[in-house]
């Protein structure tokens, strides 16, 4: 910037313009998925008003709850330019252990059940994080391995044993039935999770570090960010959330056994990507991921409510993923252009 030739506020104006650009970029990332959700709900409601009836709303929220929690955890990992494919298996093993605990320790306090489930999730998640950071093998491969290992452990442990809703206390099942102001209790838990993680990611040092690592791991390291510790933290948090989701699964559904949660991982990654979390890391928000989760679970219910063959659902989810990637691409190009322009103005 040259001195004296330009008015003193040019730099500030440029800065403001850049940050305004960034803000619109951020808005752009979540905007499509939010609009899609609103359009979907509105159109389905017009076709079948029962869709937004009291029971209908409750079902929509309940269906989304577990996926939202998992998508928030997955978003943290993806933002660091990693991925955790083992979440379905972690959920399964925690859900089964929840069923086991209730039978093995009659009268166990529900708080302890939650703590135990989240602790087991944390353990399994940190194994992933440890292998990824220490072995330095891509997380895609590591967590593909732990996906099978955790599932294998679950199979070996559970065998043909299943625990049913009847084996668990009514007050535990009631978490997924009772509502406060129309919101089921477990949905409120999910909302609290989204708020806490969103604040952590947006305005704490470790949270911002996760974005820095995902944007450019080498630069983050040179800058002095404890990359290994932060990536471990992301995997551990994801494990805790998958554990929480496992406990809630046991509350909501009838049976937990060897195959609980199989194949869930791709729904979760899809939810995060559709919600604007870039698969290459460094951008996106957990709020976006949560909205993505709500959108995907709502599509299933909407198609069922307007009697569309459910086989179409998968194709629609696929289209949404492609749309999310195209939007990501356009955003990147626009951001790059804007940055170049504002830099040019500053010279």
């Amino acid at each position: 910037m040259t001195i004296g030739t330009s008015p003193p506020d040019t730099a500030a104006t440029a800065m403001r313009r850049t940050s305004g650009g960034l803000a619109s970029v951020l808005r752009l990332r979540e905007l499509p998925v939010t609009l899609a959700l609103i359009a979907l709900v509105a159109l389905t409601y017009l076709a079948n008003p029962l869709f937004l009836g009291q029971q209908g709303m409750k079902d929509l929220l309940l269906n989304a709850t577990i996926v939202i929690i998992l998508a928030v955890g997955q978003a943290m990992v993806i933002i660091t330019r990693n991925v955790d494919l083992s979440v379905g298996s972690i959920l399964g093993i925690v859900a089964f252990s929840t069923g086991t605990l209730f039978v093995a320790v009659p009268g166990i306090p529900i708080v302890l059940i939650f703590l135990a489930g989240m602790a087991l999730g944390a353990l399994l998640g940190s194994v992933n994080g440890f292998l990824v950071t220490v072995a330095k093998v891509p997380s895609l491969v590591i967590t593909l391995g732990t996906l099978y290992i955790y599932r294998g452990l679950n199979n070996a442990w559970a065998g043909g044993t299943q625990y049913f809703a009847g084996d668990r206390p009514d007050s535990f099942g009631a978490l997924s039935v009772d509502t406060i102001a129309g919101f089921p209790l477990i949905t409120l838990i999910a909302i609290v999770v989204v708020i806490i993680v969103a604040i952590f990611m947006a305005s704490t040092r470790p949270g911002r570090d996760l974005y820095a690592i995902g944007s450019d791991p080498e630069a983050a390291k040179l800058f002095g960010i404890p990359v290994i510790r932060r990536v471990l933290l992301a995997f551990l948090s994801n494990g805790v959330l998958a554990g929480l989701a496992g406990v809630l699964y046991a509350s909501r559904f009838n049976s937990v056994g060897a195959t609980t949660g199989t194949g869930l991982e791709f729904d979760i990654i899809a939810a995060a990507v559709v919600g604007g979390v870039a698969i290459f890391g460094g951008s996106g928000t957990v709020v976006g991921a949560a909205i993505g989760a709500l959108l995907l679970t709502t599509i299933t219910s909407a198609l069922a409510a307007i009697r569309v063959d459910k086989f179409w659902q998968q194709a629609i989810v696929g289209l949404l993923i492609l749309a999310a990637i195209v939007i990501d691409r356009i955003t990147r190009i626009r951001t790059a252009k804007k940055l170049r322009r504002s830099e040019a103005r500053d010279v």
Partner: protein
Amino acid sequence: MTMQFIRHTKTRGTRRFLTLAAVAASVALVAGGCAAGNDAGTGTAAEGDLSITFIPKQLNNPYTDVVLGGGKDGATAGGFAATEVVGPLEASASSQVSFINAETQAGTSVIVIAANDPDAVGPALEEARAAGAKIVAFDSDTNPDYRDVFISQVVAKDVALIQIKLLAEQIGGSGEIAILSATANATNQNEWIKFIEEELASNPEYAEISLVAKVYGDDDDTKSFQEAQGLLQAYPNLKGIISPTTVGIAATARYLSTSNYKGTVALTGLGLPNEMRPFVKDGTVTAFALWDPAQLGYVAAFAGKALANGTITGAEGDTFDAGDLGKREVGADGIVIVGPPTTFNADNIDDYDF
């Protein structure tokens, strides 16, 4: 770190792909090892030297465990020297083929299979037969060309009739009903559904009942749950649901019991007493049906023995001894019937433990 190989140079991408392939290959080897290393039956028909292997639709399924428990009892009582259970963890069409191949190589004398797909297992079973194995289908039939006999729980039509009868009683003989099934290509499900539809069309007692939808929950708790929700939203006048699958009926019962629809929408179908007990007690479900799954495995084992000994060939009219259950006769199309279905309700459900 992840997925970035897409953006890297080709060599690095290739190397990572190879790592991935290596992991996948070792997983496959481990899985294959389990299947291949399990028995050393000789395949000759000498008495006391016979081996039998059960290949269920999937392992770790509670219903299947009861069937297999009966099968092992039958195999022991029938005098088989070796009894094995192998099978996939996932009930998909092609997943059973590698297990059949392994049994062929091991020279197993009798293969008892519940087919996930009637035709997908065909070529593998033909190879097994060419190598001298006898094929007994149970639970879910293969195409009749590929097996010697099929052990059916009950007469398929009886299963269909009892379900529609139970539901008709519960909804007072008129109104809209729906079916929540397992997978869209499950042989046994589709046969029952076909008989239910025929009965609805032909029996004047059911003239006021209309079947408005058939949906598929893929024997997955979560999917069945959402399909049940969808049914109730899409058809506000729905009076009842038939779910001829243990996973589907339990998931639907769980949904009904936790929603506003409890008590207003009837539910029946085929369920396991242990799984359905709370829903019968809390009034969500009045009555449902099933057979004794253990007997199915038991008869299958004895049929396998009679085939391997040459006592029967699977032709219509052949009879064989089924241990404690007495004699069984091979009917048309090589089908052997185990027994009539049982109805479970609040009065008798505590007498059963499976």
